[in-house]
């Protein structure tokens, strides 16, 4: 009797300990976004007189307005809006094109293997891991030859080229799990390459398309190295503009505007994560455990 009571107490204590640790960790992970949000609605005097965690006394959305459409970034004073639009113009086509190519490639690598296709796939997989610094100089030369330097089209092109290895991997691993007997039966019935793809594989591909789209969207929206290397001042993606805003030396530091701009810049991927976290996690796992 005494013994069970003792184990009960220690069980309860360990539960309390576990929840405490998990909650403190959660607060730690939430701290930066909390600081971003409260800082973005304070005015600059309040920031200077208060501290990092003091709640805003007079909530103002002026920093958001300024960050969106008035802040000085580089030579212009139109806020982060034009760069946000650039990022949309880069991300949407790059994600769609790389996902479609990836789906078709993945279909071939899983269901229409030919002599050498496995070697080809392995070589492609290696492309997921190269440090992009090693292609930066040849790419900037090539962009010059192709007349794509500093253009949105150029950035789309780069993201498609280096994103296809990942999307191919996603679709291949997904299609491998679809029974080959089904495909073979369809082949015997006389169905061809595209018919099998559209009638059998595509109807079940929604989850993997979601994974792929969310993964590619996060990667491309958040990308910085290609953005800073291959863009002009008017085609910069939002990450480059945010860095220019935060690290500008010419103007007085406006931390509230910086934080509002950072929140605007992360909004699309953060919202995508919150509403479809399941697919985001699957993408991470698929990218990790090949």
């Amino acid at each position, binding site marked *: 009797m005494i013994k069970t009571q003792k184990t009960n107490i220690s069980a309860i204590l360990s539960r309390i300990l576990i929840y405490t640790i*998990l909650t403190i*960790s*959660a607060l*730690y*992970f939430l*701290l*930066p976004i909390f*600081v971003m949000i409260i800082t973005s609605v304070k005015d600059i005097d309040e920031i200077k007189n208060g*501290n*990092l965690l003091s709640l805003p006394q007079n909530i103002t959305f002026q920093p958001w307005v300024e960050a969106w459409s008035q802040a000085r970034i580089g030579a212009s004073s139109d806020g982060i809006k034009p760069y946000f639009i650039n990022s949309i113009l880069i991300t949407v086509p790059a994600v769609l094109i790389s996902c479609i*190519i990836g789906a*078709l490639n993945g279909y071939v690598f899983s269901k*229409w293997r*030919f002599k050498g296709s*496995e070697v*080809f796939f*392995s*070589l492609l*997989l*290696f*492309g997921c*891991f*190269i*440090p*992009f610094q*090693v*292609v930066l*100089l*040849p*790419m900037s030369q090539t962009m010059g030859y192709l007349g794509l330097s500093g253009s949105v089209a150029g950035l789309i092109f780069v993201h498609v*080229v*280096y994103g296809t*290895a990942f999307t191919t991997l996603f679709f291949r691993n997904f299609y491998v799990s679809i029974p080959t007997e089904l495909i073979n039966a369809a082949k015997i019935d006389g169905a061809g390459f595209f018919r099998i793809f559209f009638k059998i594989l595509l109807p079940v591909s929604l989850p993997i398309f979601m994974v792929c789209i969310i993964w590619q969207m996060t990667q491309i929206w*958040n*990308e*910085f*190295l290609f953005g800073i290397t291959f863009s002009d001042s008017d085609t910069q993606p939002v*990450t480059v503009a*945010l*860095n220019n805003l*935060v*690290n500008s030396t010419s103007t007085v530091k406006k931390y509230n505007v*910086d*934080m509002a701009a*950072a929140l605007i*810049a*992360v909004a699309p991927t*953060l919202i*995508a*994560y*919150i509403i479809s*976290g399941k697919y*985001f*996690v699957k993408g*991470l*796992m698929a*990218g*990790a*455990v*090949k």
Partner: protein
Amino acid sequence: MKSKLKFLEEAIPKLIVAPTFLIMIIFIYGFIAWNFILSLTTSKLLPVYTFAGLKQYYSLFDNMKWWLAMENLLIFSSLFIGLCLIIGLLLAIFIDQKIRFEGIFRTIYLYPMALSFIATGTVWQWMLNPGLGLEKFVIDLGFTNFTFDWIINSEMAIYTIIIAAVWQSTGFVMVLILAGLRGINHEVINAAKIDGASLPLIYWKIIIPQLGPVFFSSVIILLHIAIKTFDLVVVMTKSGPGFSTVLPSIFMYDYSFARNKLAFGASSAMIMLFFIMIFVVPYLYRELRKNS
């Protein structure tokens, strides 16, 4: 006629992947070769193809800043990987105790992975700013002698990059390890419990050793993130104070684009590729063999 159709039928899959094949050969392997050739020249602002042998590599290995970048990368990657693994493992173990609100905790730990390094760097730079950030907060609490000025201290600045990077990537490791934990056979564990083994002992002796492959994947991926880390340093410290937080990625960019020493920059990129290959090639080899 029929054989012609059949031939076409067989050619379609190859035609579909042909563009990807061309792109891969040109933009991955061709460009690596091109970059290698560039690194053997004397190119400065523009590429010139005068062969200069390993000249750039010699001057790279004579360059103090390059060694500082390598040293920083060593500090950064070892602490970054170590901390992500330890914290990620602990969080995964705690979350795996059949707790309530598991989904909420997981969502909170992982959300930083959805943010760009630029945004993460922006907020951490602000929080670590001694004048207005965490230092001031603690001073306001009454600890007037408190100092936390790592970000402007050239000895300590690299650790602020680590703080931000660990915050960003720990959730990812947690998710990987949690998936590993869920895949473990529970029979042995139950047997050990019946034998009276304590939970920490069970984790230490039975469960963690079984997570080997998960740790291995995590290390490769974190290492890959570490070697490529660029944005975080650009936004947080601009490789300063001085050059104290320079990394190979920053070094490469700086010499190639700001200082117009193309061939020299290309040589540093080759060394980066070399270091990634040392780890990634055996990893991919193992993974591909496992699959086939």
